[in-house]
């Protein structure tokens, strides 16, 4: 009876073993062979955190930091960790905020985000604001401070060339250049921030962190074996003299134009002003986008970098270049004179000259010093019609080659984006204009820097460098060294010495003595600096603007180019003030003061009044605002038409919507698109006052 059935025990034992085998088989498939669950474990438990490196700084030639990172703080809190004894009154007093506001804000945020997540309460508080809170953080459990670096421009100058950073846009992310970027990363948008993006940014680090089921970080994954450290961005050492920059920006305030100073020997830019401009600090911090909108809407086009993008006829400041070409082609010698009696009549129509005293163009030196128009129109014609040339077309081509050597007619290659090349008229252009029936008379005014000839302010300054260096230049650039490396790969193009057309040094001396004459006894006696041999050239540029298809003559541009000292020059300057009058009236003094400030480190007492006069002057022609409002109106009408077409059911297809406006593309003035609906305002005055 005790052993009812021995067989049954065997049945049961087999069953037990079978179950064991099934479980082990199942484990084998789950644990040893690859499957979805294995992948899921890493996905949910390991969090990849990007550690952003600190961005490189910008340092000027005197080791002053002109762009740095300040730590700003985001206040975040985790509602679950807040204790009931949270001292709201004290907390609000520390941060200087209204308690009611705090209560509603926290309530809203908790309603939106729930109790578990960490919520950002306030963004970008300055360090002074949170200093008191930082000391007593332990009294407020659940509250945390997140460091949030911001770019700070301590001198509030240099917006056009330093540029700014912003979060990368969707379109940028699609480009090859930004393949390492993720949404939310920042990148330089314009200026040096953009050009040296790779160097300034550094290399982001990656941390693999373990998180628990509530997404809280509990430690590092595999003790940080896969982590990589962030490498800080490299600092850029600039040639720039920030004090000079500040002074120049001050003097150029409330004027349209540009002022550029270059160290001739190295091509290093000492000051770079495009005016009007804005405080670059406006594009950092909380009100960034609101400020940006205002800046874009300004009638004076604050984001337009006049230093490298605007083109002006150089006027008389071009005459030294004309002279050099003439000397090198052998069509004139330094003693060549022209009997000018107040005008140039060789081509029938009179081209006026401000001087008519006999002998004011008796030789090259005097002709430059007195800025004789007739002389240089004639020299230009001699160059183009030289017997070495088969005809005028070959002559113009040869002349264009010289211009190209001088860095004109094409972008020079400065280390900020958006550089334009100016304009040197081509044979094709004249063929179109004069139906292939033209000669040197049609373009004789090119010799005195008028007509179709257009240069950027940077090219004007660079021409001065060439003359100052007696025949060579280095591509103008801002950066002296990346980190401590002055021969960085990216700086190589700027180290190359570019010799211009192998012009004889004696030819330069003739031209330079003429430019010295300009200051000594010529048109720009006001630009004299005691103890320094300045060489310069004024320019008073006739110009026109188009309004509703009509060509309207505007007040002359005031232009001045110079370098100093005469021997072993240290600084070359080009200044242009739009629609302000004679070259010696505005541009001359500004350039002279810049040179004095740079060479003497100070401005003599007697000339301080001049600085103030420059600073106070407001020279923005009314036409700027008129044109702006017409432009905006046209856009508004266009927009309204588009709106109407949408409302009336003629919806543009997705492709049409995506397709950029063909007009906008041709003009490449993307900022105009932004300015459509904004009313006219005079923000530049506001910022510069």
């Amino acid at each position, binding site marked *: *009876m*005790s052993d*009812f*059935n*021995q067989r*049954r*025990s065997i049945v*049961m*034992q087999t069953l*037990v*073993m079978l*179950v*064991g085998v*099934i*479980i*082990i088989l*199942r*484990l*084998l498939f*789950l*644990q*040893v062979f690859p*499957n979805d*669950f*294995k992948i*899921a*474990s*890493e996905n*949910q*438990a*390991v969090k990849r955190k990007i550690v952003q490196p600190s961005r490189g700084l910008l340092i000027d030639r005197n080791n002053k930091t002109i762009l740095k990172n300040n730590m700003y703080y985001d206040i975040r809190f985790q509602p679950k960790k807040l204790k009931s004894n949270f001292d709201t009154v004290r907390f609000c007093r520390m941060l200087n905020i209204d308690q009611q506001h705090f209560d509603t804000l926290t309530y809203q945020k908790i309603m939106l985000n729930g109790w578990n997540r960490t919520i950002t309460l306030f963004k970008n508080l300055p360090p002074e604001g949170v200093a008191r809170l930082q000391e007593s953080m332990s009294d407020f459990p659940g509250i945390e401070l997140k460091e949030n670096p911001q770019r700070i421009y301590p001198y509030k100058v240099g917006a056009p060339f330093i540029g700014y950073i912003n979060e990368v846009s969707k379109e940028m992310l699609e480009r090859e250049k930004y393949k390492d970027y993720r949404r939310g990363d920042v990148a330089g948008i314009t200026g040096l921030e953009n050009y040296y993006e790779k160097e300034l940014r550094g290399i982001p680090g990656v941390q693999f962190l*373990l*998180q*628990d*089921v*509530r997404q809280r970080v*509990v*430690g590092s*994954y595999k003790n940080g074996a896969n982590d990589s450290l962030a490498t800080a961005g490299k600092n850029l050492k600039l040639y720039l003299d920030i004090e000079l920059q500040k002074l120049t920006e001050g003097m150029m305030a409330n004027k349209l134009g540009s002022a550029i100073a270059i160290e001739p020997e190295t091509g290093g830019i000492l000051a770079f002003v495009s005016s009007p401009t804005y405080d670059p600090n406006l594009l950092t911090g909380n009100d960034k986008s609101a400020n940006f909108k205002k800046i874009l809407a300004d009638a004076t086009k604050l984001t337009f970098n006049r230093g490298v993008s605007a083109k002006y006829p150089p006027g008389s400041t071009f005459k030294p270049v004309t002279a050099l070409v003439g000397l090198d082609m052998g069509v004139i010698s330094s003693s060549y004179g022209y009997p000018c009696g107040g005008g140039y009549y060789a081509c029938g129509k009179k081209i006026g000259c401000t001087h008519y005293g006999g002998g004011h163009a008796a030789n090259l030196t005097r002709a430059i010093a007195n800025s004789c128009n007739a002389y240089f129109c004639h020299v230009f014609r001699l160059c183009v019609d030289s017997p070495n040339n088969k005809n005028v077309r070959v002559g113009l081509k040869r002349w264009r080659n010289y211009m190209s050597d001088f860095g004109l007619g094409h972008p020079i290659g400065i280390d900020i984006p958006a550089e334009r090349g100016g304009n040197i008229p081509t044979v094709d252009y004249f063929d179109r204009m004069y139906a292939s029936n033209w000669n040197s008379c049609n373009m004789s005014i090119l010799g005195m820097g008028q007509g179709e000839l257009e240069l950027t302010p940077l090219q004007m300054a660079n021409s001065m460098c060439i003359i100052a260096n007696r025949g060579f230049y280095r591509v103008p650039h801002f950066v002296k060294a990346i980190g401590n490396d002055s021969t960085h790969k990216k700086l190589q193009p700027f180290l190359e010495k570019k010799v211009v057309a192998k012009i004889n040094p004696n030819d330069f001396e003739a031209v330079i003595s003429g430019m010295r004459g300009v200051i000594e006894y010529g048109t720009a006696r006001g630009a004299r600096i005691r103890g320094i041999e300045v060489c310069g050239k004024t320019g008073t540029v006739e110009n026109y603007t188009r309004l509703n298809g009509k060509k309207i003559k505007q007040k002359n541009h005031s232009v001045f180019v110079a370098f100093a000292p005469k021997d072993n020059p240290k600084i070359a300057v080009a200044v242009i003030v739009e629609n302000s009058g004679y070259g010696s009236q505005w541009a001359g003094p500004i350039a002279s003061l810049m040179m004095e400030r740079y060479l003497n480190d100070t401005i003599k007492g007697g000339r301080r009044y001049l600085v103030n006069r420059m600073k106070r002057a407001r020279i923005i022609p009314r036409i700027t605002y008129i044109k702006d409002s017409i432009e905006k109106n046209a856009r508004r009408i266009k927009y309204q038409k588009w709106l109407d077409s949408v409302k009336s059911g003629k919806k543009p297809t997705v492709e049409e919507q995506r397709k950029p406006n063909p007009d906008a593309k041709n003009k490449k003035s993307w900022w105009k698109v932004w300015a459509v609906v904004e009313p006219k305002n005079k923000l530049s005055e506001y910022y510069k006052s």
Partner: protein
Amino acid sequence: MSTINPKTYLKKIDGVLILLYLLLVAIGFISIYAVEHTSQSQGFFQMDRSYMRQLIFLCIGMLISVVILFTDSKTFPNLAFLSYGVGIFLLLITLVLGREVNGSSSFLVVGPIQIQPAEMVKFFTALVLAKFLSSVETNYLDKRNRYIAMGLALFPAVIILLQKETGVALVYFSFFLAMYREGLPNWILLLGFGLIFLTVATLLMSQMVFAILIAVVALFVIFSNRKKIKKKKSYLFNTIGIAVVALIFSQVLVPFTFTKVLKAYQVERIYTMIGQEVPEVYSQGKDNGIESAAEYNVRQSKIAIASGGFLGKGFLNGEQTKNDWVPEQRTDFIFCSVAEQFGFLGSMILVILYMALILRISFIAERQRSKFSRVFAYGLAGILFFHVLINLGMTIGIAPVIGIPLPLVSYGGTSLLTFTIMIFVLIRLDADRSMILR
């Protein structure tokens, strides 16, 4: 055997069983410690930690087992009916006074101690079943006695079911293993397996298709056995009868149970087990596309186990279990902790240890002279087998999620003490295997 001779007594104690017991208990303690351990943990001896409480229960278990080893083996059959009565009484009290934890009221709170009578009553039921089947008057071939035995085994289950502890109640079905060994006819087990097969098949297939399938199979059986049927008409009727019962079961009973009897979460768990989504007919308007708790638990459990790989992540490196990804990981899902830290190798060893434990108990059962000891041993083996099968199956996604602990490993005082006591009672009985106890 009122006096114990230490030298002969020690030789009779089954060392293998004790070794297996100690190994499993040690694995359990290590696993609970690993789950609790974080980088911020300071010190080992912290009374608020689960592993310390488990350690305390372990010590209590040791004390009790020493007492058991020095108890007269006749005490156990003698106390069987009394303890069973007390157990039922406790269950009933719990039903009235029990504290509600997670929707079930199976805990009895006495001062600082919480006890779960449903766990203890397993032991008492095993005793009383052994006592009943071993008594001289009982002839197990008698149908009446069979029903009494089944009633004894399943009566606690009914009360526990009323406490809404479905999982624990199901455990009592494991006593059928002991009863089967003692002569329960084969057809009862066949019926059991048949019903489970029918249920699962019903759930997997659409009702129409399944009905046609049953008819086709029945016709095929009749056709292939037509010669037999010619000789014996009853064979035909039996076949048709079985088919009709199967049809009624699958077409009427199962849908009725699923819509009217079972709770929504129970339906969900059963469907989770067979890897299906709850169809609209049974979801009772609760299916809202959100992953159910049971599905989530099983998914996280599988993820944790899978992440262990072949060799595991190493002791205290189980990220999934340590960082609360797996719910209920100290109790029902403790296996994840082992599997993640020690990988396939470690979990295989654990499974083998369990199988060895059950087989060893089965082996011990067969060498008993006393029927009481044998039935008790099979009762224990059945309970262990059921627990291990369901718990491990649930963590690796081949069994329904019903909350029963992994014996000796899961955190939980009552469960640990119950299994400790049962194993040591068996060891004590085994020491007297040449005796006949009644």
